[in-house]
């Protein structure tokens, strides 16, 4: 029995002629302790997919089960890190995390809740910023608060929705190490949504590409059988790394790529014949202007991805 299972999940938005099918026939099985990365185009439906696992929305058809129980609403067993951090701006780092701790462990003594909160702030190295508000933090720091908040709830599964998408490359690398370290520490089940194939290979046990929308679906699982700990410098030269990377990208550009769209547009070819300067500028002799007029042509362009 798989830990997390999605079976034949379909999801769309709108109704009537405005109906948009977003996800089609999504099937996914995950074992406890597994780290799966889902890679896909932006707008394909990655957030939509993770929202259904989080229980924030329900599939139109199909089922999402955790431990064989249908997911119908959000719960503390699934910690989610939202794409845009979603910290409450009027609360400090400490208060944001304490709010979660207080909700999930209501029966603990206040001292224990406080200590638990401090532990997770320390885990993401934010103790010096514990009394700052989100607006006073950098993007990377906010993301760490968001991760700490999700982890402090001690969830069975951690859902990361493009957690590092908005960060610069250097901060991104640091936080990847941090996610890796945290995962090594308590071997949680993790789903990482990302648009960065390298990030997936560095962190995950398995990468699953999500095809381009509309009606996106999951491609074949690609096992990342590169031994841990993976070093970001060494991994670049690993032949297996190159193979995995190519497989994912081939799927995303090939079978799971964007449907080709053709666009027809009008072009105006400019006057290319030079003026005849030997002819004096004179109202009576209009021959000085170009002989060939602008030409209008039609052209069809096929758009790649």
């Amino acid at each position, binding site marked *: 029995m798989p830990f997390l299972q999605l079976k034949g999940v379909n999801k769309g938005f709108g109704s009537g002629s405005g109906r948009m099918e977003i996800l089609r026939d999504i099937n996914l099985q995950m074992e406890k302790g597994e780290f799966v990365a889902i890679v896909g185009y932006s707008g394909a439906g990655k957030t939509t997919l993770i929202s259904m696992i989080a229980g924030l929305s329900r599939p139109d058809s199909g089922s999402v089960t955790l431990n064989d129980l249908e997911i119908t609403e959000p719960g503390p067993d*699934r910690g989610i890190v*939202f794409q845009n951090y*979603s910290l*409450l701006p*009027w609360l400090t780092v400490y208060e944001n995390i304490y709010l*979660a701790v207080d*909700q999930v462990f209501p029966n603990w003594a206040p001292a224990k809740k406080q200590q638990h909160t401090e532990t997770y702030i320390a885990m993401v190295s934010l103790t010096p910023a514990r009394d700052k508000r989100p607006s006073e933090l950098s993007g990377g720091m906010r993301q760490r608060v968001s991760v700490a908040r999700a982890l402090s709830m001690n969830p069975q599964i951690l859902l990361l929705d493009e957690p590092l998408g908005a960060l610069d490359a250097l901060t991104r690398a640091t936080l990847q190490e941090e996610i890796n370290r945290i995962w090594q520490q308590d071997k949680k089940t993790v789903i990482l949504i990302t648009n960065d194939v390298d990030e997936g290979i560095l962190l995950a046990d398995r990468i699953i590409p999500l095809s381009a929308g509309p009606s996106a679906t999951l491609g074949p699982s690609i096992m990342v059988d590169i031994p841990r700990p993976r070093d970001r410098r060494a991994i670049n030269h690993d032949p297996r790394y190159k193979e995995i990377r190519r497989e994912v990208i081939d799927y995303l550009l090939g079978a799971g790529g964007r449907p080709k769209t053709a666009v027809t547009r009008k072009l105006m070819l400019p006057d290319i014949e030079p003026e005849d300067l030997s002819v004096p500028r004179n109202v009576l002799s209009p021959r000085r202007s170009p002989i060939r007029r602008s030409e209008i042509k039609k052209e069809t362009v096929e758009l790649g991805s």
Partner: protein
Amino acid sequence: MKNGFKLDWLVLPMIGVVAVLVLWMITSSTISKELPSPGKTWESSKPYLQQPFEKRGEMDQGILRFTWYSLVLVAKGYAIALILGTPLGFMLGLSKVFTKAFDPIIQVLRPVSPLAWLPLGMVLFAGAKSGVSEMAALFTIAVCSMWPTVLNTAVGVRAVPQDFLNVAKVLKLSRTKTLFKVLIPATMPYMFTGFRLSLGIAWLVIVAAEMLTGRPGIGGFLWQEYNALVYEHIILCILTIGIVGFILDRLMSVVEKRFKVA
């Protein structure tokens, strides 16, 4: 640079003031002989300005004393407006059904002038043994100044980002906790914009309310002096009302800004 700055906030406004004074002077000496000139207004206003807290009689008091009476009345009516308006705004923002039921009637009542509400207030509290005029005035202030608070709060509640609501859902916050930890803080900036607009209206209404009820205060004084043909004091009152209104608005926008940042 520094000169330009001074020009902006000191010299140009002065030019505006002088222009209006000149226009006033010309008007009072040509087309409207009844209008007191600036000089006469100043002479006649002096006692009220120099002893602003003096009480010489019920309707003959220093200008700041009158202002104080008015401010107290406004504060009471405004408090009622906020206490009723804020929850009403939240209900409108949270419930589509509630909005459909009450939005039309609110849109109809909103443009009604204080001059129309006051007599109704008098009728409403006619049974009371004392303080009928005060209650009617408070009723009028509250009912007129409530709407910006109601509508802005409702807009603010509807504009709470889905992200914050998702956080509340994921954390399984109770209804009360969602209200106090998420909805109210997220709506705060809109609420305070409403509060500021409401205060402006409350101050507008006070004059009408005092005029019609004859209560001592800046508006009551204005009306009395009109009837007593002391036109200089009408101008004194107008200027005082304007300045006080301006100060109130500035104070509220300072408060409003504090909540915008958070």
